[in-house]
């Protein structure tokens, strides 16, 4: 029985189960935060012991992640100059592999969902597609345009259609009507609508879906000129290639020097997270812009149309659809997007907060996946536990660690009094925590060095001064950790817990400079 990856149209029992499961992440996060506050009041010695155990655990995990960040970074660096077209050609040299599909028959379908982005944001995206080393005549570009998009956006798209008419195999705009029954105002609904339209076009052209890869990008995703060559290469060498998604490393370099420091640190942190995740393909989940087999997408009935986190949801949908025989292949190549920006620092802060909340709302996958795992028996229990634990632990850690790290070392000392203040641990806990935090600056130093290396060159006259300033921006980390990471995540989980569901909020892609 095919599992329906949605929370809509459920039976009464399933609806109740879904509701209970929706509450679990929020309840866990609040219990951890409330529990630690309670213990700090009434059992401060126990709270201090837990705090030390936690901070040491966090430290080891930080070192562990830093190690893999460095490995992943150098792996990415190693492939910067790789000629992927040449590598594709090498695959066919000598004895031709009979398992390889005919490269000349492979097509790439690119979906660009557009909500309100101006032409200035879209133009570099299309330009980058036109500059691919892979034949652009094998690229089919589809703008999935919300019907409610501003006229300026629609006019810009029409001008692109004229300008690039002969560059790509096909370039079309599909206007997605608002208010289709069964759809929420989410990106997945627009992308699915555009992909279905593209499927019709492919059919008329007699192109086999098995030979088509689909890349669903954000409207600001600028790919490097080797992206489709690299993607094709990994598609060709991956066994059971249609049962996999292909995940590049997202970086936010389009406007990274024009955003406030806190936003820059946040975005680089996100890139680093993906770099670390890329070293663990077994547990990798799709995020942001990525690619997959069009055949698989059609077989699983496209993206969920009622979920905000379409990027991760599509992986879980595929994982359940193919009964656990689906995975993510990391690509050693970057795609560049816009860092969140607005006219003022305050507005940028608000936008970053909303964007992070939207990302953290990926926790909406938890209840659906749990129900899916209960129904799909073919997936091993071990795999179910592994994935559920990683998802739940990841989201709960996201919502709580920022608060715990910034408060645990002093909370018992502040809240408790009396006997606790004459205990040894009252004096030792801040000392142990302080030592661990000092040691963790080693990891911070590595992050700073890597961030300098990963950032694009700036056109500013005193670029070294900008980079120096960027080094100090990393010391905003405690602030960022609490207000732009833990708080929005807790907000998202609380909304899901209370049944106050979120809808898609389009992040401003403002290229204005914030000084």
């Amino acid at each position, binding site marked *: 029985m095919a599992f329906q990856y949605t929370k809509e149209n459920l039976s009464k029992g399933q609806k109740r189960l879904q509701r209970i499961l929706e509450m679990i992440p929020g309840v866990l996060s609040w219990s951890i935060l409330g529990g630690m506050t309670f213990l700090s009041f009434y059992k401060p010695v126990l709270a201090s*012991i837990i705090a*030390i155990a936690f901070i040491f655990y966090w430290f080891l995990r930080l070192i562990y992640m830093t190690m893999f960040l460095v490995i992943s970074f150098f792996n990415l660096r190693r492939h910067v100059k790789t000629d992927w077209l040449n590598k594709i050609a090498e695959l066919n040299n000598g004895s031709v592999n009979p398992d390889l599909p005919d490269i000349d028959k492979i097509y790439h379908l690119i979906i660009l969902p557009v909500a309100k982005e101006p032409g200035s944001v879209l133009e570099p995206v299309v330009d980058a597609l036109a500059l691919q080393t892979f034949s652009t005549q094998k690229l089919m570009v589809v703008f999935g345009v919300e019907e409610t998009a501003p006229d300026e956006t629609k006019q810009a798209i029409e001008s692109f259609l004229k300008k690039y008419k002969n560059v790509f195999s096909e370039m079309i705009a599909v206007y997605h009507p608002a208010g289709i029954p069964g759809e929420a105002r989410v990106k997945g609904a627009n992308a699915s609508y555009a992909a279905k339209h593209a499927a019709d076009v492919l059919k008329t052209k007699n192109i086999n879906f098995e030979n088509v890869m689909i890349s669903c990008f954000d409207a600001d995703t600028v790919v490097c000129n080797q992206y489709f060559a690299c993607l094709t290469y990994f598609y060709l060498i991956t066994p059971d290639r249609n049962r996999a998604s292909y995940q590049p490393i997202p970086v936010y370099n389009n406007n990274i020097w024009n955003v406030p420091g806190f936003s820059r640190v946040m975005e680089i942190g996100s890139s680093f997270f993906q770099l670390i995740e890329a070293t663990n393909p077994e547990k990798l989940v799709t995020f942001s812009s990525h690619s997959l087999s069009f055949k698989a997408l059609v077989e699983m009935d496209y993206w969920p149309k009622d979920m905000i986190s379409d990027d991760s949801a599509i992986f879980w949908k595929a994982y359940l659809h193919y009964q656990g025989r689906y995975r993510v292949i990391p690509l050693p190549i970057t795609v560049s997007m816009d860092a969140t920006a607005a006219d003022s620092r305050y507005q940028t802060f608000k936008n970053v907060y909303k964007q992070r909340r939207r990302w953290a709302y990926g926790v909406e996958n938890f209840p659906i996946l749990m129900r899916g795992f209960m129904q799909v028996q073919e997936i091993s229990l071990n795999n179910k536990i592994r994935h559920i634990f990683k998802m739940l632990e990841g989201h709960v850690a996201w919502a709580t660690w920022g608060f715990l790290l910034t408060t645990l070392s002093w909370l018992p000392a502040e809240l408790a009094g009396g006997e606790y203040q004459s205990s040894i641990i009252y*004096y*030792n806990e801040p000392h142990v925590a*302080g030592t661990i935090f000092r040691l963790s600056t080693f990891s911070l130093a590595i992050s700073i060095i890597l961030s300098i290396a990963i950032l694009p060159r700036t056109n500013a006259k005193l670029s070294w001064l900008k980079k120096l300033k960027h080094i100090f921006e990393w010391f905003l980390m405690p602030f960022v950790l609490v207000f732009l990471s833990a708080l929005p995540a807790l907000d998202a989980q609380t909304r899901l817990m209370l049944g106050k569901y979120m809808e898609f909020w389009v992040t401003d892609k403002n290229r204005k400079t914030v000084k």
Partner: protein
Amino acid sequence: MLRKIVFYIFIIVYLVLCPLIILDSLGVVIRPKEKKLMMSTGLISIDTIPPGASLYLNGKLFPKKSPAIIRDLAPGSYSVKAELPGYRSWEKEITVETEQATALRSILLIPDKWKVQTIVHKSFIGLTLIEGSPLILLTDRHTGALTVFKWDIGLLDRLALSEDLKSEDWRLSDVFPNSTNFNKMKLIKVITMPQSNYILVFAEVDGKTSSFWIEADDQNKPPRDITALLPFIPDQVRWDRRDPENLFFIVEKKLNRIDVEEEKIFPDLALNIKGFNLFNKKVYWIDSEDGFWESDVSLKNARSLIGHLNKIPKEFQGALEYQIHALSENDFILKDENGRLLTNKLPFQLVEQSVVDFDDHLNDNRLLFWTKNALGIIDFNQTGKEGIFETGPQITWLIQNAENIHQAFWVNKGSHVLFRDDDQVKITDVTSVGKTEMSTLIKTEYPVSYSDALGKLFYLDETTQYLNALTVLPAHKYVTFQLPETFRKKDLR
């Protein structure tokens, strides 16, 4: 594969190191070569004012200076000494217990020579600092005029930060800047309330007593002449710092109220009053029938505070007058005309007689009180016991052979007490009971004022009568936040 190997290595590291770190934090020392593998220890936390003192434990020097935490100490008795050039050495015997921290907080090192600065080069004959307010009231030596010294919050910081006070940092303002005839007045009495910027001044004008209600820190507001409402000096006057519109006073044992804003007097609100006070916009009083009452300022809604009793307990009865002091809405300290000190908590009577005054500004349940010859502390946190019977809060006598104690103040949040005995101002360490060490700061026959927030003793120089400030707490106490160095017993040299 690599990831899995590293993962398991990290798990092993965590499982081994985490318990060791936790045990270490709990003061458990692992001794692989000893018979008893683990030993529970204690620690000493010590910080001095000023910081940077050399520390000795049982005569052995530590490599780091104060503030410091000395860990891994086996239970037992230790001699701790702090030494800083220019200051007297400080030494104490302390007991360390397992899993316990012995805190020696804010040890005030007494300098060999006190730092004194002249703040205003002008002669005065009287000085009053309003507790908790940025004002000092000074009486001009030559004209008898009242002068206000004021510092604002910014200046307060500068005072704390900078050792070199300059007279221009202080705004000297005449209370009556626009009055041409004030100098012809003769100042009789000034009444202040803790933390209130208002003062009540009684002066003789043309041979008659006049009263003025003054917002002392605002030069733009002229003094309000309330002589029509209060043409004499009453027995007791009080107002609530949160409600300076209402002045309460007693005349012939009758409680009266003046609404200063409305310029109205509400006479005879309560009769046969033995004593009263205000707290949190409420009036408390004891009447001649030994009833204890509480009311709002109108005194129309009086509520008895003695429950179903007819009178306050017998320990309170017999007094003619009370000085009532509310620590909270449920905690009161009372002093009668014989200097007997009482509280509404058992065993009611704290000191039998002769108490001159007390200071409760510490907010840590300790009360400083003094008689003519003795200085004591009542600690409400520590209740004594005789057999199975509680004997009430413990009283510690710091000094019992003084000449004539006029004033006393808490210093350094209660670690020391500063007091004026006869013509000498002295300081003593509250913690060194048994062998009280005292240090004389200055000699003066005038009243002095001490601000613990500023760490300064204000006084009039005996010879010049200029306003001087003596630094009791060094300024950097307020600006440096030094994390204590933590080191182990094995670091002893």
